[in-house]
């Protein structure tokens, strides 16, 4: 029974935080060392995955696991793409609108939805994600139907078109830093305390004055907005969206990133995305074996790092401690 060893981290900006920041900065600058466009592309994908998963993490902090996250990424994507392509609005309007619409939808469905807990929530969100996909397919006038929408304009910030992958990378990196900072603030403030209370014991939390429904809904709205925000960037970077893009598999991939990264750790989404997003690239050469190897790695990580990759450093320290 070692389940009881997690601790509420008291915010201390000490040496270790500094070390982490330096490491993070080093990792972030890898694409420049190589100078290869492909590395910038992978870097962008890592940032996008980490951002979307951060949204999922916020929802996980209140003890809920959403399999509808891809649908919210999709909502953001479609919102922004439609605003930009149909109404000719600039991306800088489409981006926040994407986040806003995703958040608004989360707010509307959150109340009835969040009465469900645990696996039921997992399952209903799965159904919702499918529903999103089916509904989008049903209205091709809006969504482009199954053909999707191709030729989405590139990201443009106040007249500056981000045509190069390296530029997009800088932009997504900045967004990721902002999202991570937001997560940090949530977690270390009163809100984080409420989230944790709801996660650990909702009945007690409710009875000691935390409005669990509203708190969960807030987390759901924040998380889904982050998803929508990510979706908008993703759509304009990839340049193509279709309902299939935001299927259940994408939701699952975020869940995998979250759990392997560390479900309750602040750095979980980031660490998970840095590890898992480029992983297929290392395995690509193995072709038909690549998915088998991926599956094995996934199971091994879960098996040997139950706290996720973000728990790795803690586990190592403990190991060292045991030896000495």
């Amino acid at each position, binding site marked *: 029974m070692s389940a009881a060893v997690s601790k509420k981290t008291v915010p201390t900006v000490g040496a270790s935080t500094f070390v982490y920041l330096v490491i993070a900065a080093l990792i972030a600058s890898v694409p420049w060392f190589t100078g290869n466009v492909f590395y910038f*592309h992978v870097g962008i994908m890592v940032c996008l995955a980490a951002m979307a998963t951060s949204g999922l993490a916020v929802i996980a902090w209140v003890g809920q696991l959403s399999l509808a996250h891809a649908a919210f990424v999709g909502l953001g994507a479609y919102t922004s793409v439609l605003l930009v392509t149909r109404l000719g609005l600039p991306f800088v309007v489409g981006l926040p609108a994407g986040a806003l619409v995703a958040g608004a939808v989360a707010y509307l469905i959150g109340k009835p939805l969040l009465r469900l807990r645990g696996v039921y929530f997992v399952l209903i969100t799965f159904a919702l994600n499918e529903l999103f996909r089916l509904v989008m397919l049903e209205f091709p006038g809006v969504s482009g139907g199954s053909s999707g929408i191709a030729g989405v304009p590139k990201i443009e910030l106040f007249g500056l078109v981000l045509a190069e992958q390296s530029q997009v990378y800088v932009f997504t990196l900045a967004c990721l830093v902002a999202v991570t900072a937001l997560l940090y603030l949530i977690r270390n403030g009163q809100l984080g305390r409420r989230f944790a209370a709801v996660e650990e014991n909702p009945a007690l939390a409710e009875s000691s004055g935390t409005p669990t429904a509203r708190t969960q809904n807030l987390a759901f709205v924040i998380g889904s907005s982050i998803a929508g925000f990510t979706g908008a960037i993703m759509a304009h970077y990839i340049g193509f969206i279709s309902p299939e893009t935001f299927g259940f598999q994408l939701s699952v991939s975020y869940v995998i990133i979250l759990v392997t990264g560390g479900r309750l750790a602040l750095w979980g989404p980031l660490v998970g995305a840095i590890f898992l997003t480029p992983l297929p*690239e290392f395995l690509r050469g193995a072709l038909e074996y690549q998915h088998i190897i991926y599956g094995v790695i996934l199971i091994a990580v879960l098996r040997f790092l139950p706290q996720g990759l973000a728990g790795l450093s803690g586990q190592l320290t403990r190991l060292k401690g045991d030896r000495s």
Partner: protein
Amino acid sequence: EETLKIGALVTLSGAGSSWGQGMLRAAELAAEDVNKDGGLKVGDTSYKVQVIPYDDSYKANEAVTAANRLVFEDKVKYIIGTVGSAPILAIQPITEENKVITMTLGFTAEALSAEKPYTFRPNPTTAEVAQPQIDWIVANKGIKTVGALFPKDETGQAIAKDVGQAYANAGAELSAVEFFERDRVDFIPLLTRIVAQGVDAIELDGNSPVTAGQIVQQARDIGFEGVIIRTGGPATQDIVNVAGKEATEGMFVHSAYDPGVETAAAYEKRYTETYKDQMNGFSPFFYDGTKMLFKAMQDAGTVEDTDAVKTALENLKDYDGVLGTLNWTGAERYGIAHQLDSPFYIARVEDGSEVIVAKCTSQGCE
């Protein structure tokens, strides 16, 4: 000797992998041909052709990542792929901008256009084959009404339109059309409804081989005795596997090649012997397509300047492929002549095998 890298961005996992594998192997066999003779001679240089296969899992996002890697990391100038429509649309911004020539299977009409000069499609789509084949069948079998089931995706919807138009032109009517969600395995309710409308024939075009097989089996199960037609997309063997010989007896299918044509039969033989596996019907198109690409490089005298190669490829006339005489067409339909025009056949299924009953070109069948 130098190396010429060709990307094979195809689907190797999930439901599209039948096609993906057929395309990849076509490229490999084509590469083997030139490598065997000491490499591809372009100008004064001999290139050893290396095929770099990547899997896109039939997903747009994956395809974009793989395309980025092929174009920027592996620095390929030629890509065989993608299988799917969504992936090709998703990677075109990268490939077109970087002047990478792609040969896609994607059935979407949008894949080819004047704005996308580096994309070619070396296989006919329903749009090309439907009319002549349907004209022939409608005339020969006296069909008035036809029922059809299509998957509710890009390909299914495009095909439904083309096929419906073709039947109308041929003087029949596609009177009962159903779209269904992928993953569906039970078609009895839909077939019940279609059969209740008293259709003369059921059209299978646009469905994956497995689905087509299930539809055939279930249609026969509920007692449908009319004609079953598969207009486009070679998949007879798979359909027979799923539905059984009994149910498929007398079905009319599209066939990409006539085993009577020697070169085609030889390719199939080589394929099955090399890979110990039955050949996917699209494979020969991509074998020919890759070979045409090689020829274009030789004609252009360069592998680097894809503009020149592209022009050379466009200029290939009456290319003598394993499937017969091949040309580019499609200027009317797509605004650019990057669509392969090849002969094809109508076959009747007898005891699980195809028996050719008519030979067609885009002009008509006999």
